[in-house]
C-alpha cells in the first residue's frame, strides 16, 4: 500500500460567488483499521484562509506546525500558497507525504483555491480542487455537480457520494463555508463505515 494511502483521507475545495467551501472526511485509519472518526485535517490559518492536507497524518500535523507561526494575520492566499510550495520543495528528495489544499479569500473578496502535489507543484483552479484516496471519485462527482456561483450544499453532496465508494475515507464530513463576513462550519453525517 502506498504511503499516501496509509491513513486515508478525502479533501476538496470549491469556489462560489465571493465565497468558497472546503470540506474533508473525518476518518483516521491505520491501513485497514479505523482509529478515530473525528480527525482534524483542515486548519484555519486566519479568518479568510484555510489549509487542509490529505495523505500521511503525521506529515499533515508536522506541516501545520511549521506553518502556523509563519502565517501573518492578513496574508494573501496566493502568497501563502507560494510559501507552502517552497516549504514542500525544500524536502524535494525526502518529501512530506501529503498534498495540501489551500482555500482563501483574496483581494476584493475574490475566492482562491489551489492544491499541490507532495513536492509543491501548484495547481490553481477556477472551480474546484480535490485530493486524497477518494480523488478519482471526487473529480467525477465535482465535475458533474459543479456550477458557478453556488451554495455549500453541493460540496457536501460531492464529498459524501465520493467517500461512500472509498473504504479508506469517510465516517462523515466536515465543511467550512466561508463568506467575507463569516465562517460557517458543518459536520455531515454520511455512511458511517
Amino acid at each position, binding site marked *: 500500500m502506498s504511503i499516501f494511502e496509509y491513513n486515508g483521507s478525502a479533501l476538496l475545495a470549491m469556489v462560489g460567488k465571493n465565497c468558497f467551501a472546503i470540506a474533508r472526511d473525518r476518518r*483516521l485509519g491505520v491501513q485497514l*483499521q479505523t*482509529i478515530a472518526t473525528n*480527525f482534524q485535517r483542515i486548519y484555519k490559518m486566519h479568518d479568510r484562509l484555510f489549509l487542509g492536507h490529505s495523505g500521511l*497524518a*503525521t506529515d499533515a*500535523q*508536522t506541516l501545520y*506546525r511549521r506553518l502556523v507561526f509563519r502565517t501573518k494575520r492578513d496574508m494573501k492566499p496566493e502568497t501563502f500558497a507560494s510559501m507552502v510550495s517552497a516549504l514542500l520543495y525544500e524536502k524535494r528528495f*525526502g518529501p512530506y507525504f501529503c498534498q495540501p489544499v489551500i482555500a482563501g479569500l483574496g483581494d476584493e473578496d475574490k475566492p482562491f483555491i489551489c492544491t499541490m502535489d507532495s513536492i509543491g507543484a501548484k495547481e490553481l483552479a477556477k472551480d474546484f480542487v480535490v485530493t486524497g484516496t477518494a480523488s478519482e471519485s471526487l473529480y467525477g462527482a465535482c465535475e458533474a455537480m459543479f456550477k458557478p456561483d453556488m451554495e455549500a450544499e453541493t460540496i457536501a453532496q460531492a464529498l459524501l457520494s465520493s467517500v461512500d465508494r472509498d473504504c479508506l475515507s469517510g465516517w462523515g464530513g466536515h465543511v467550512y463555508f466561508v463568506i467575507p463576513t463569516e465562517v460557517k462550519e458543518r459536520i455531515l453525517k454520511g455512511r458511517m463505515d
Partner: protein
Amino acid sequence: MECVFGLVGEGFAVVVADTSAVHSILVHKSNEDKIMVLDSHKLIAASGEPGDRVQFTEYIQKNVALYQFRNGIPLTTAAAANFTRGELATALRKNPYSVNILLAGYDKETGPSLYYIDYIATLHKVDKGAFGYGSYFSLSTMDRHYHSRMSVEEAIDLVDKCIIEIRSRLVVAPPNFVIKIVDKDGAREYAWRETVKDADVASA
C-alpha cells in the same frame, strides 16, 4: 503481540498493558511494567521495540520533570502529548523510534484525557484507543460497550471484557496485564490480572 489499550471515563482515564517481555520465541519475564508514571497526574503506556520503549519514555519523563523544575508548574496533558509527538516527529526522518504510545492524564481544568500517538508521530485525542494485535479485539469490544462518562466499576468491567477477549482469541496472547488509572488523586497502579506468576528467584 504486545497489547496496550485505554479509555476515558467520568473524571478518570485508565490504561492497560500486557506485561510480557519477549525476545523472539522466548518470554524473558511476565511482569514487565510497560506503563510509566510520567508525573503525578500522567501515565504513558508504550508498546514497541523494547529498547526504544524504555529509552524514549524515560527521555520524555525526564524532560517533563525538567519543565516542572524550571517553570514551577507541571505541563498539561495536551502539552506533554504534543511534546512527545514533536520528539517522535523530529526523530522520524533521522533515527526513528518504534514506540506506540497512549498518554493518559488528568488536568484540573479540563479533566481526564487520552492521547493516541503512534510510532510515526500521528497525534489524536481519543476516548478509547489501542495498539498491537490486541487492538483488533479490544477496540471492537470497547466500541460495543463504551459510553461516555463511565464509572470506574463499569470501565474496569469493560477492561476485563477486553482482556478475556484477547486471552481467548489471540493466538499468542500475553498471560498477564497491568491496569493503571489516573484521576484527580493522581496516577497509580490499580490492579494486575495475572494467570502466570514468575517463580521467585532463589536467594544465593
